[in-house]
């Protein structure tokens, strides 16, 4: 095997570096200039936290920040609960039904955000005129975020369900549990790593989302990505750099957590399979 993998040569390494440079250079420039003391976007004049301070002082930005966090937490929690039940439901179906339904579950993830956003907006408009209320705002963003989060939660839980012993529920029932008790005492703890991964992914996607929020927000509520977009249209200020940096670091932290968790779980699974064969 080791003969197959050759270490990259000079050109290989140079090529890799070039790719990473184009991917990350803009972000590093952004982060660097969020600490630049002048409004200039080309000259470095000195280090400052001023732009971060003015962010905190700007009420509309802080409102957008709170909205984003609250929607992210609520939509992640609700989507995780709904997605967990859905995943268990899918899993206990016969294969004949499970496979097509899982494919249907995957479609919204591949769907263009703008299509999801516009179609949700149309739905809310239609519902609003039917019920004669305009409920665009916090609630519609929340519903939209729950909607696009659920498939990801299901996707992160399914592999955990596949890993558990097919007789596990039977074993719990055999030992005195009703089906519902077996669900809480055995299935949920066994798939907990998947549930938590799903929760973090849902939170991250919600914080990250711009397009769907933009179409479902109506006029009064703004999330952080929407706020950044609005600011770029009025005047280009270094505060945008600071805000984008915060957003980038939040998402980065979440992604690191997810990846570390998954790597650990894989390691543990490998180890237990190794033990079983002894």
């Amino acid at each position, binding site marked *: 095997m080791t003969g197959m993998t050759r270490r990259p040569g000079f050109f290989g390494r140079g090529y890799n570096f070039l790719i990473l440079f184009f991917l990350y250079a803009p972000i590093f420039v952004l982060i660097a200039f969020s600490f630049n003391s002048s409004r200039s976007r080309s000259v470095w004049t000195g280090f400052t936290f001023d732009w971060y301070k003015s962010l905190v002082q700007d009420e509309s930005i802080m409102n957008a920040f709170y909205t984003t966090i609250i929607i992210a937490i609520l939509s992640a929690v609700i989507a995780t609960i709904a997605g967990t039940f859905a995943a268990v439901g899918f899993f206990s179906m016969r294969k004949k039904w499970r496979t097509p339904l899982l494919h249907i579950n995957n479609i919204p993830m591949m769907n263009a955000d703008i299509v999801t956003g516009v179609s949700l907006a149309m739905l809310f408009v239609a519902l609003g005129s039917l019920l004669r209320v305009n409920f665009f705002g916090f609630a519609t963003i929340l519903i939209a975020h729950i909607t696009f989060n659920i498939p990801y939660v299901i996707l992160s839980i399914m592999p955990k369900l596949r890993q558990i012993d097919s007789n596990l529920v*039977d074993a719990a029932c*055999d030992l005195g549990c009703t089906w519902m008790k077996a669900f809480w005492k055995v299935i949920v703890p066994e798939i907990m790593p998947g549930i938590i991964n799903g929760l973090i992914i849902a939170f991250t996607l919600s914080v990250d989302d711009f397009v769907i929020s933009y179409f479902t927000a109506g006029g009064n509520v703004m999330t952080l990505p929407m706020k950044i977009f609005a600011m770029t249209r009025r005047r280009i200020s270094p505060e945008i750099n600071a805000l984008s940096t915060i957003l980038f670091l939040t998402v980065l932290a979440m992604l690191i957590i997810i990846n570390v968790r998954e790597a650990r779980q894989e390691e543990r699974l490998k180890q*237990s399979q190794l*033990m*079983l064969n*002894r």
Partner: protein
Amino acid sequence: MTKELIRLSDCKVAFDGDVVLDNINLYINDKEFLTLLGPSGCGKTTTLRIIGGFLKPDSGDVFFDGARINDVPPHKRLVNTIFQKYALFTHLNVFENVAFGLRVARPDDKKIDKHEISHRVIEMLEVVSLKGFEKRDVSSLSGGQQQRVAIARALVNKPKVLLLDEPLGALDMRLRKDMQNELKQIQQSTGITFVYVTHDQEEALAMSDTVVVMEGGVIQQIGTPEDIYNEPKNAFVADFIGESNIVDGIMRSDGVVEIFGRKFKCLDSGFEPMEPVDVVIRPEDIDIVSPGKGKLTGTITGITFRGVMYDIIVDFHGFKWLIQTTDLCQVGTEIGIQIDPDGIHIMKKSRFSGMYGDYSSYSAEYDDIGDAEHEYEPEDEDEA
């Protein structure tokens, strides 16, 4: 000793139109070690799942201690199960796995207090030689140790019946033999009724009081291990349990059967005169004599050394027999054979006649492939 505990009457199960169990009638006595034996897909696991309550028969009744229990869910049955791949709870440690059934208060029990739970779990871990493993993660245990946790987790609830679904299937040969003895010992010392599912005929013969041989969703024979081996009911049972030569014969009269035109004395009776029958001759019941002295004369076409004895293949009139002998023979030699009357067993013709018991294609290699197939083929159709 012979009080009836479980009865299945006319149980039928079909999955998507495929009949998996076809009118099973079976009773299991209290304190009995009963084995359901058969190849993959014969319905043995399905039968076990009916007793455990994980599956309702499409028709037919299940009785426990005289009461009909078709609609009693698994958690209300006085039955515990050891599952094929153990089905341990990986999020709990060894102690909590074993304590699981005690912590879940059953509707008919009072809640068991902490001290008693701890006492019973520790006692049970001692029985399965896992004392000191309480805090260990179950996924850090070896296959044999996980097996023991599964046994302790089931037995700690003091069930009336323990169901075991191929519990030793994942263990290697050596460990399996040890665990066979241990399970038998646990069964005798606790007096719990064991219903054991396996495809391994040696395991079934070594451990059971009663063996139930199944094939195609139908019970082929029920009997003690000796009965099943010595008096198989049809060609399937004769072939599945041990090695057998099965040849066509004609019953001339009570105690006399004709094979290849020669009359042999036997102990069987009750057949019509001139009735065509299947004749079973076990390879170890055939005596080799010099060609002139034997009833039949044949030529040795193959020899395999088996350690204790040789397997030799002998050609009689184009039909190849397997004979087990400790005598050293040479390929190509002509030999005569003698069979004592108690070495011949007569069976009625069945749908299995002519399907088994011919060693024409026999070779040591072929034998191994056949075994491997039995070992690794999971019973998919039963899990649907």
